[in-house]
């Protein structure tokens, strides 16, 4: 079973690392693209160690390549021929995606409302309660947009997922050229200053996982 770590451009040499479950790294060069993979035993599962090993390989490729599309953990191919066929069929899209992420990293942002202290007065009825909830949801969505808009203007691309409830206002990823990260963090700092009642959870820089799939947003 073939596991693909990433599709890259401009890879001079494979990193000196082992892959998932100690497997060797291998590469396939096709139409100017470098596919980095391991041939795994069929029963090699997906666990935390596999996630970390996958991520380590992707990070190492980030340092060695002009552009990297991180692969997803889970999908596997029956053999190298199947990978080659899939890459050839999508070579154009893959190249476009590589152009988009070249020289870029991603920053993740979650914005959370702190757990609500009880407001003191209990709602009088179910309707009151529901209306209050609805108003709160609308307010949360408005704030999410207000935060996302200035950040998305600084980014090459961005994706958002609807907040998952539980006080999550925004769940977003931003694609930034490496030299734009500091500027972006300054803007984040400014927003955080002005929104002191919200908690900002920033992660990254990551390889551009959220921007690797062909044309999501």
């Amino acid at each position, binding site marked *: 079973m073939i596991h693909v770590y990433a599709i890259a451009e401009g890879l001079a040499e494979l990193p000196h690392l082992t892959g998932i479950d100690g497997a060797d790294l291998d590469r396939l060069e096709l139409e100017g693209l470098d596919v980095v993979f391991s041939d795994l035993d069929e029963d090699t*599962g997906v666990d935390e160690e596999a996630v*970390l090993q996958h991520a380590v390989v992707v*990070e190492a490729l*980030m340092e060695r390549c002009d552009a990297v599309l991180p692969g997803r*953990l889970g999908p*596997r191919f029956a053999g190298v021929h199947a990978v080659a066929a899939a890459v050839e069929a*999508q070579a154009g899209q893959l190249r476009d995606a590589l152009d988009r992420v070249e020289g870029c*990293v991603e920053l993740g942002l979650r914005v959370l409302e702190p757990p609500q202290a009880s407001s003191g007065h209990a709602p009088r009825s179910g309707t009151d309660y529901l209306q209050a909830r609805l108003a709160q949801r609308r307010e949360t969505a408005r704030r999410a947009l207000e935060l996302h808009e200035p950040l998305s203007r600084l980014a090459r691309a961005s994706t958002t997922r609807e907040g998952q409830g539980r006080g999550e206002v925004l769940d977003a990823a931003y694609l930034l050229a490496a030299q734009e990260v500091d500027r972006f963090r300054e803007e984040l700092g400014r927003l955080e200053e002005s929104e002191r009642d919200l908690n900002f959870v920033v992660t990254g820089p990551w390889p551009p996982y959220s921007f690797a799939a062909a044309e999501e947003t």
Partner: protein
Amino acid sequence: MNQPDRPLQHEVTLLELVDRVLNKGVVLSGDITLSVAGVDLVYVGLRLLLASAGTVERLQDSDETRLLAPAASSR
């Protein structure tokens, strides 16, 4: 929760990584997707951690949110 912030940040970063590696990234058509056991538990963990992230001040001011080796940003 008397632990210092670092383990929590590390956990949040790890779960963010799991989210990316399992749900994002490029997928080539024609592949076989394995079912990933235990992932639901990971999400439950992520939600719980994020809920408690309110106790972590200014997570992003720390370099500890980087889990792995420096990536392209440090070139």
